[in-house]
């Protein structure tokens, strides 16, 4: 396996959903993903943070081949992803869903759930499949394995269900795991356990991971690199510690200011929140998409020109005219 090569490369990805009136008249596009580029190396963990409607789930769907990109290219392990090689792609990409209970078929037991991906992809001989099932269950610490094999999803707690979902994503030995808010449905005391587990699995197998979340406070326990998304674009890319210490984009600043740490001081004053709501992606604002809500707007520039990526600090990219 290559250690430092690029596992997944996205160039100028656009994913637009067509809007139709009466089912057939073209009525515009929802620009759910509008020009996103990145490279993910083998064994690298990347976090994408954004609010609902920022395009983070569409990015994930595009990576999984569930939503074909309108424009731009996606290259996985050196091969461009097309409509024809999706089954090859999906065999090498594991998916950890947000709601573990909804993601597990209620009529299958644990063994069957883990067997299914191997049957579909015609992997291994029966004995080898059984061995793999045991191996992944041990890996996610659903122990002792015999106790779990015949259980159904409803007999497991939320944390155990999520571990089973991770085991299912692992069973085909993927090179990339895509996790969509894997801990948002879990209790606080279990979250850390699941994040720890994902981190351990990622390191043990040198997996690439794309972790999608709206909760910035969990990020630093998981990955180094963070992308902040707003209105279908990535506005800031940096190391997580750098983002917390030295965030540059006004949107990132607002987002960070809104996240409370458990402290009684919070109850004593009001938070500063930018006015308004994220824009419609059917007709997004001209220029910088954050400008209608931005306090640092440069008149005459921000509402006209789309800001390119600037690099004011090495390794820290920001799409904002303040740093030109």
């Amino acid at each position, binding site marked *: 396996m290559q250690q430092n090569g690029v596992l997944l490369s996205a160039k100028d990805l656009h994913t637009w959903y067509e809007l139709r009136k009466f089912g057939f008249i073209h009525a515009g596009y929802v620009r759910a993903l509008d020009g996103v580029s990145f490279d993910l190396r083998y064994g690298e963990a990347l976090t994408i943070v954004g609010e609902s409607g920022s395009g983070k789930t569409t990015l994930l769907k595009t990576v999984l081949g569930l939503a074909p990109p309108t424009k731009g290219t996606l290259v996985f392990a050196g091969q461009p992803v097309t409509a024809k090689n999706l089954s090859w792609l999906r065999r090498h990409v594991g998916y950890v869903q947000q709601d573990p209970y909804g993601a597990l078929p209620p009529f299958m037991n644990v063994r069957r759930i883990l067997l299914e991906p191997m049957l579909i992809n015609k992997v291994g001989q029966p004995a080898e499949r059984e061995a793999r099932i045991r191996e992944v269950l041990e890996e996610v610490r659903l122990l002792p394995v015999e106790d779990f094999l015949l259980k159904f999803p409803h007999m497991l707690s939320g944390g155990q269900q999520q571990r089973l979902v991770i085991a299912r994503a692992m069973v085909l030995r993927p090179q990339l795991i895509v996790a969509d808010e894997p801990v948002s449905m879990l209790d*606080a005391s279990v979250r850390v356990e699941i994040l720890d587990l994902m981190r351990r699995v990622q390191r043990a197998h040198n997996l690439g991971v794309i972790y999608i979340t709206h909760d910035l406070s969990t990020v630093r326990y998981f990955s180094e690199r963070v992308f902040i998304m707003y209105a279908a674009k990535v506005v800031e890319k940096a190391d997580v510690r750098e983002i917390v210490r030295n965030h540059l984009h006004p949107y990132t600043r607002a987002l960070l200011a809104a996240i409370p*740490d458990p402290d009684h001081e919070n109850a004593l004053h009001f938070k500063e929140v930018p006015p308004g709501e994220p824009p419609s992606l059917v007709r997004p604002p001209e220029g910088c998409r954050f400008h209608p809500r931005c306090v640092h707007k440069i008149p005459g520039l921000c509402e006209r020109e789309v800001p390119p990526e600037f690099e004011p600090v090495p390794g820290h990219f920001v799409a904002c005219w303040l740093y030109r």
Partner: protein
Amino acid sequence: MAKQTKSAVNLVNFGRSESATLLRVEDLKLYFRTTKGVVQAVDGVSFELGRRRSATVLGESGCGKTTLARAILRLLPRNVHTFSGKIVLDGVDLMPMNDEWFRKEIRWRKISFVPQAAMNALNPVLRVGHQIAEPLVVHHGVSQDAAFKRAVEAAKLVGLPEDFLSRYAFELSGGMRQRAIIAMALLTNPELIILDEPTSALDVLTQANIMNTLKKIKREFEMSYILITHDIATSSELADEVIVMYAGHIVEHSPAARFFKAPLHPYAQKLMASVPTLREDKELEFIPGQPPSLLNPPKGCRFAPRCPKRFERCAEEPPLFSLDGVSVVKCWLFAR
């Protein structure tokens, strides 16, 4: 402008008494019958809430926090096995009241409720404004039109633009729907609002916005809140005091200033240690094991099997020990 609105909403006022305690709950039990046996969802809970105070009820799923809210509001399912104890609001015990009287005089009039997943609580075929106005029509016999006018004022107060009131629920974003529900809860000028996970499904910025609104309302209207949540960081925005529940019991009740600095009960300590923080680097912990089944809860302290500090005495159920006259802890470590 806020002052003006306040006096208008205040038209509906029913002589408030001024004792310091608003709500007193004593040995409240709510058990459910299921096919597997009796679930002891809330098992002997006692606490007091002062006027103009807000208490946060923290706990993991299945600890009985939502059931506690439903018990106070008497929104009970059919399979109730036991419902006993005392709920005293304004010096009046609510338990002997019959259901019809409770519905007419207490629920929404004195205690209103912002349900969990409030985003989906709005009726899809009613315009939002009419829906906000409904409690006034039902509980105060105000005419539709007058009630709608007041709904406009309440909506302004929570930051819901007036033209949104003639829309339907599906035309509003999650944050706006949440505001509509809060406006509805405010309209009858209750003494207590019970909020069940009011921000859990919302984005961070919207969440901060709603929390600001709730803080403002609390200051202006001198309202009491019970905030039920599992999100410890967000709860710190609104809490004057913190109640921690575990397996149907209250294990700690402390002032927020103390709780967020140094919780007392081992479970509360573990819970705090599991909260990821943005600004400070700390090693996160998690609590191994699972909460006990409430079908047949263990004898003795219910947290003992997972507790790092357990000792022989934990085989007996600890009583509530009070500490410094402000905190109450259900743990033998605080026995004297």
